[in-house]
């Protein structure tokens, strides 16, 4: 009987706790659409449920009184509200607000191309940098398949939207590379000096870029190096153009990489006869050291150093004289070092910066002269990123660029006959705000001030851009900006009376991204002012001034599809360009020699798992480019014929650690002409004779084996099992 009492007593005490209340409801987003998979629960209890496909949820709870109800879903702000559980059935409607997503939400895409594996809507993947045919692992080669670039076969560097080669600047981890290309004789394309395998991502802008970047009128190429590698390993490459060996050592949060590479084009030139007479084919020795350390807090520091020394001796044919050659004996020594770091200073602010040094020493010996030149550039930069609120992100900082150039010309007796030099200090603070009005609308407003000590030029350059997301897949974006750049050293060494060259960009962009497909279209107008000109005065002396000007306008289309056909990935870029300028020795406003009205690239990649291979092809087309025929007496009035090239490549994974790669450029042997070189004097018939400027060989062939050897304990764990 006692037990019965006890039982009754106990159950009466437990009664209120055991009584179950039902909580039901509906989860919607801001637009009223039901949300699936949202986790709804009472805080600090296990009671809860996730919403079904109709946004509905229901759960029972034994809790009562005041509780906190939580609804959470990734990408949305977590909802929390007090709930008084007194009645046994509660019905709720909860609306979740989207979080501002600064990575995959609305992004400013006007003029911007990104290569990355982290973000979802990027134009290029990291892998593309090394697997695009025709590019033979040259970063600028890959960028040249994107809209906005012009094919200038004899130069090898980037030419963007009617801008000259020097208007495009290159940065590694935010730090300037003063001379990213090797020096070559006239009309021999130069190659990008840095191996694409170093970089996990790239940001390529064809205009309207952030106030963080300056001293570039047309374009910015920002490259990001890889983080700490997964393991220690040795890599060996054996190629028709040379060989290299590298060693990666990794311990916990620190890694050290060293590489030594020797390349020599002699075997290639023996195999494939060249247009020009090479006494010594281009050859170079290249060494790299790369140290990386990750801080516990997530930041990191990297020190990168590269040294290369190249030589080549070339006898270039001269127009009008079949047996006469211009001799070029070139020795180049390039050093590039940088130290870059980033770290967070608390949860809302981070700092990044560093210092780079570029040193370029060149010696060119011609038939009757010798020229030594030295360029030293030091770049220091500090940038703060601050999340002021959920909606406002600030970026501010400054940079100093110190440039020093010296050139000495010797006569045949090795006596110096001329010395030219300059040095410049550039101080530049900048600030920029990203304002996220919502996940659909973002604006970026900033400005940059530049002060050049050498020519006493001060410029304030405002930048502004806006992006508006129309729906899940498409967005409009526009950008405006003023840009200024110091005249190139070819002018600065002669004159202190120059001003900064100026450009203004206006860009409108539409982008559609959906599951492996990207469509982009862009129209732009670019205005140039204060371009440097070189003119002869009445006494036949060269006078430099900033009386040049010009403009460029056009539209571009891009389509990439990796979805429609299994294992096939292709992209198509088309650019239309209309540009004229008066600059350099141009007597009036005219289309410059490096511009072509129509550029088309089609890149195709096909991965065939059955034979462990990737085949690729790149077709490039460029309409004719202007050249001056002195026989007509008019400047840049003639047009070369169209340029065509089909390059193919093949990669074969022999073993997990052994790759075979082969590439052939211009498979069909199109006879491409980049322009014509005319004799300075007319012949006895009064005709200026010319020779075409052409690729040294119709085709280029590259074959290589890439081997990776790893001694990592974990990787070899297999053997211990």
């Amino acid at each position, binding site marked *: 009987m006692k037990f019965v009492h006890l039982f009754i007593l106990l159950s009466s*005490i437990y009664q209120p706790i055991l009584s179950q209340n039902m909580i039901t409801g509906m989860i919607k987003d801001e637009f009223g659409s039901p949300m699936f*998979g949202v*986790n709804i629960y009472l805080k600090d209890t296990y009671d809860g449920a996730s919403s079904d496909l109709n946004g509905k949820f229901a759960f029972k709870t034994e809790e009562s009184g005041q509780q906190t109800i939580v609804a959470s879903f990734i990408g949305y702000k977590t909802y929390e509200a007090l709930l008084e559980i007194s009645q046994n059935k509660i019905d709720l409607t909860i609306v979740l607000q989207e979080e501002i997503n600064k990575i995959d939400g609305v992004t400013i895409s006007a003029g911007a191309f990104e290569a990355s594996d982290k973000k979802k809507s990027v134009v290029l993947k*990291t892998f593309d940098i090394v697997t695009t045919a025709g590019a033979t692992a040259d970063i600028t080669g890959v960028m040249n398949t994107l809209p906005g670039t012009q094919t200038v076969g004899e130069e090898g560097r980037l030419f963007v939207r009617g801008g000259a080669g020097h208007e495009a600047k290159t940065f590694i981890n935010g730090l300037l590379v003063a001379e990213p290309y090797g020096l070559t004789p006239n009309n021999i394309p130069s190659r990008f000096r840095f191996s694409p395998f170093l970089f996990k991502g790239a940001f390529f802008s064809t205009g309207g870029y952030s106030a963080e970047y300056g001293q570039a009128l047309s374009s910015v190429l920002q490259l990001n190096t890889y983080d700490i590698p997964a393991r220690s390993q040795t890599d060996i490459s054996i190629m028709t153009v040379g060989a290299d060996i590298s060693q990666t050592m990794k311990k916990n949060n620190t890694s050290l990489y060293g590489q030594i590479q020797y390349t020599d084009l002699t075997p290639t030139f023996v195999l494939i006869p060249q247009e020009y007479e090479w006494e010594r084919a281009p050859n170079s020795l290249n060494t790299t050291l790369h140290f990386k350390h990750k801080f516990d807090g997530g930041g990191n520091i990297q020190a990168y150093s590269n040294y290369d020394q190249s030589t080549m001796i070339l006898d270039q044919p001269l127009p009008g004289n079949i047996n006469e050659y211009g001799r070029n004996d070139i020795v180049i020594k390039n050093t590039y070092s940088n130290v870059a770091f980033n770290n967070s200073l608390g949860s809302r602010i981070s700092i990044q910066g560093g210092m780079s040094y570029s040193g370029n020493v060149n010696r060119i010996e011609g038939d009757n002269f010798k020229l030594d030149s030295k360029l030293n550039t030091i770049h220091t930069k500090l940038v703060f990123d601050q999340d002021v609120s959920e909606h406002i992100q600030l970026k501010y900082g400054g940079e100093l660029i110190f440039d020093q150039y010296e050139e000495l010309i010797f006569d045949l007796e090795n006596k110096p006959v001329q010395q030219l030099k300059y040095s410049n200090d550039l101080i530049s603070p900048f600030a920029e705000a990203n304002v996220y009005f919502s996940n659909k609308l973002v604006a970026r407003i900033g400005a940059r001030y530049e002060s050049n000590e050498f020519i006493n030029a001060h410029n304030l350059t405002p930048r502004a851009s806006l992006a508006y997301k129309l729906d899940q897949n498409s967005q409009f974006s526009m950008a405006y900006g003023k840009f200024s750049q110091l005249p190139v050293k070819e002018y600065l060494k002669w004159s202190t009376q120059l001003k900064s060259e100026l450009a203004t960009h206006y860009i409108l962009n539409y982008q559609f991204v959906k599951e*492996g497909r990207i469509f982009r279209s862009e129209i732009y107008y670019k205005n140039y002012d204060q371009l440097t000109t070189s003119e002869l005065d009445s006494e036949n002396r060269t006078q430099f001034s900033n009386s040049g000007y010009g403009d460029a306008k056009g539209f571009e289309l891009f389509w990439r599809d990796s979805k429609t056909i299994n294992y096939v990935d292709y992209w198509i870029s088309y650019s239309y360009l209309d540009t004229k300028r008066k600059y350099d020795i141009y007597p009036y406003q005219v289309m410059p020699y490096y511009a072509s009205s129509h550029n088309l690239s089609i890149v195709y990649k096909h*991965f065939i798992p059955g034979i462990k291979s990737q085949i690729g092809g790149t077709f490039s087309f460029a309409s004719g480019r202007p050249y001056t025929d002195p026989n007509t007496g008019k400047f840049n009035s003639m047009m070369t014929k169209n340029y065509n090239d089909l390059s193919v490549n093949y990669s074969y994974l022999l073993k997990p650690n052994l790759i075979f790669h082969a590439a052939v450029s211009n498979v069909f042997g199109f006879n491409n002409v980049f322009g014509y070189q005319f004799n300075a004097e007319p012949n006895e018939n009064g005709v200026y004779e010319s020779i075409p400027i052409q690729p040294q060989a119709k085709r280029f062939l590259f074959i290589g084996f890439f081997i990776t050897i790893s001694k990592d304990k974990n990787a070899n764990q297999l053997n211990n*099992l």
Partner: protein
Amino acid sequence: MKNVLLLLLVTCLNTTFSLADKYESAMSMAIEKLYQSNSLESYLDAAATFERIGAAEKTEWLPYYYACLGNIWTSHQTQDLVAIDEYLDKAQVLLDHAGQLSPNNDEIVTLQGYIYMMKVVVDPPTRGPEYSGRAMQEFGKAAGMNPNNPRATVLLGRMQMGTDQFFGNDITESCSIISRGVKMFDDQKPKSKLDPVWGKEMAEMFVKECQAN
């Protein structure tokens, strides 16, 4: 008086028991729910349950571990590559949380490898070179920490098998790793009844793949 004392005692005991019991029984039920899941919705629902338990408990790594596993298994249930990536990203966040609560845990390292393995599925040509190596490394690391971890062993064997098949190599060695792993399932000695024991069915599926070749 006696009755009152007894009552107090019973109530006290009951509350103490119920706190520990509540976690265990909720986890057991959720684990059962996860193992019984057969659709995207049910996997996701099971994963959400673990997340709730994890949020309430704060110091237990197992709820986050299972929530991560639930999201990996959810990703098996769809063909939508973007969605697969989203579930795997979610799984990664949960696993990072589990790893903070329990560092140097071979089960957590195994799941890290599992996430990388699934990442490869989304885009084999692009991600294969990087993520298959990383997956192998994590499985190897887990097997190094605990040579008797059956999950790490069979997944390592399966990953190796895939690589061998891709390169047209003999799969005998990778299959022998898998069968060694299968045996480990029977010798598992979980520290608690909530510890991970899953994977035998998956391992037997791998064995069948071996036999088919």
